[in-house]
């Protein structure tokens, strides 16, 4: 495809607090709900929105169940209203306000703001390698802001192994999870907050330019395609018996070669990566993933070509 045309992105939502203790998004959205001048753009209707207010109030990831895994078709059609888990009720409400997917009322673009305890820098999480709109947006941001050139990464999670996140169900094309770290849960770091703010500023500028009819020529973008999740070594009772090795800790996006240290047992023994080839690990030692049996995620580095895009 040499030129892909999309309808203009008129309605844009910015979600914060999908996990109530990921503070950059919570703080930005609260700020913009009070004063949205910073996120206003010509011909774009931008709505900042706290997706999980109860979790935000308690400064916890979730109250009953992870909202970012709650957007299953079963949940969205479940009956029971007040008897349903809080996050299932929220998912239904969010779907009503911002979706449903495929309908003319659905929002055009949704940014879902997250933080991670992993040393991932700024990562845009996409669902598809054909997501030319988001690939072009990434390219625009990197080209526009030299500080973000090396800081901003794109990660593609295959739909099958991607969880039923907020954005996947709602939008047809323009969905972007923005993950910035490292930041402890419950903590607001100024540098992380400002990085997220700047990325969103450029992203909204891009949308405005796109809506004005600017054509973005074809470009190549480096992406990391998620392969598999690696759990901690555990004993027969399910207890963790080793920690992420100091050599791997904080090494997100750096190559992990077969034979490299991967885990360190509590009594000092090193366990090595046994894969057949080099992979690029990410989400290394994310706090929320201990309960999801995930120590890190492996990815393969690819170069994608994004076709030129222009408003239809």
């Amino acid at each position, binding site marked *: 495809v040499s030129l892909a045309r999309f309808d203009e992105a008129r309605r844009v939502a910015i979600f914060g607090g999908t996990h109530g203790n990921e503070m950059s998004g919570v*703080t930005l959205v609260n700020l913009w709900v009070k004063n949205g001048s910073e996120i206003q753009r010509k011909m774009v209707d931008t709505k900042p929105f706290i997706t999980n207010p109860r979790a935000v109030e308690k400064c916890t990831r979730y109250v009953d169940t992870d909202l970012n895994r709650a957007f299953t078709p079963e949940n969205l059609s479940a009956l029971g209203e007040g008897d349903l888990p809080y996050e299932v009720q929220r998912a239904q409400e969010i779907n009503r306000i911002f979706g449903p997917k495929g309908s003319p009322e659905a929002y055009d673009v949704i940014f879902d703001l997250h933080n991670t305890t992993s040393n991932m820098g700024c990562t845009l999480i996409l669902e598809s390698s054909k997501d030319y709109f988001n690939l072009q947006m990434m390219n625009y941001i990197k080209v526009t802001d030299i500080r973000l050139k090396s800081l901003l990464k794109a990660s593609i999670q295959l739909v099958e192994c991607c969880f039923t996140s907020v954005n996947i169900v709602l939008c047809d094309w323009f969905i972007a999870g923005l993950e910035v770290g490292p930041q402890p849960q419950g903590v607001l770091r100024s540098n992380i907050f400002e990085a997220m703010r700047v990325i969103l500023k450029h992203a909204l500028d891009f949308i405005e330019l796109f809506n004005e009819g600017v054509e973005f020529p074809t470009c190549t973008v480096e992406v990391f395609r998620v392969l598999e999740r690696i759990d901690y070594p555990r004993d027969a009772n399910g207890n963790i018996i080793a920690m992420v090795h100091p050599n791997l800790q904080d090494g997100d996006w750096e190559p992990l070669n077969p034979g490299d240290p991967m885990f360190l047992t509590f009594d000092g023994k090193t366990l090595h990566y046994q894969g057949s080839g080099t992979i690029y690990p990410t989400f290394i030692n994310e706090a929320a993933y201990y309960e999801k049996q995930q120590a890190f995620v492996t990815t393969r580095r690819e170069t994608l070509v994004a076709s030129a895009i222009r408003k239809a």
Partner: protein
Amino acid sequence: MPYRARFGRKMECVSLPPLSNFAICGGTHGNELTGVYILREMQKHNVEKVGSVSITTVLSNPRAVDACRRYTDRDLNRCFTDDLLSSPITESTPYELRRAQELNAHLGPKGSEEAVDLLCDMHNTTSNMGLCIIFNSADWLILHICKYLQSKITSMPVRALQMDLPLSEAFSVDSLGKHGFSFEIGPQPHGVLRADVFNTMKEAVDLTIEWLQQFNSGRTFEGGEVEAYTRWKTVHYPRDPTTDEITAAIHPQLQDNDFKLLQPGDPIFLSLSGETVKHEGDALYPVFVNECAYYEQKIAYHLTQKSTLTLPSINVKKD
């Protein structure tokens, strides 16, 4: 304070009773994982006695550990004042108040002859503090342990922090022991287990046990000086006067700079609208900069002064 030696005169060696029992606590805050896992390993290896020292391992707040939360009803590590330890238990008493009294019966009673000789409580912080040894009153024993650890541990800075409250007001679990202190290691996000932090905590615990054995077997530990950070002053986040919401983040130049002297005019906060707030007043040392658990009380950091404490040589009192 009877710490400084008179100029030119060396302090005499002080003899102290042997320390036969040592309690080591973890999971006082259920999401500070290093202590939880250190305990797990010690219990797996049935560590009960090392030479002359009997060791008791205690998971302080099992409910909070199970939920991976700081606490269930209220902060356990604020429940050990004399008042709270003697308050009557009813059906509506919060879990942590009950638990504090249980721990007091098990490891104390606080202030009595039956209390454990030495109690060490393991903590983590999201602040960039390296390894801190936090104690309420600075007795010779604890200061010597500080000095010993400072001489042996090279993986991160080791610093002594003194709270100096009257014993009745001392509120943390380590106040139960005849001698008590906490290890605080950061930075580590709550709910995360970092291998480098685990290894340093393990080393600190092992060295403490090693020191106790050497002390009990008659070694004289030479006196000297230990620097300690004292006289804590709390600094709160700037807040919106009507909503009480925090309106600024720790400034990037202060973030991660615990123990770096803060001078008047140095930036401390960067408001959400981009204004810089500067430090006013005396030059002091910030600690617990941007600790997650302190947002609840809107505490941004504490300011301390650096004091030099002088120690005599000590050895064990022989019958």
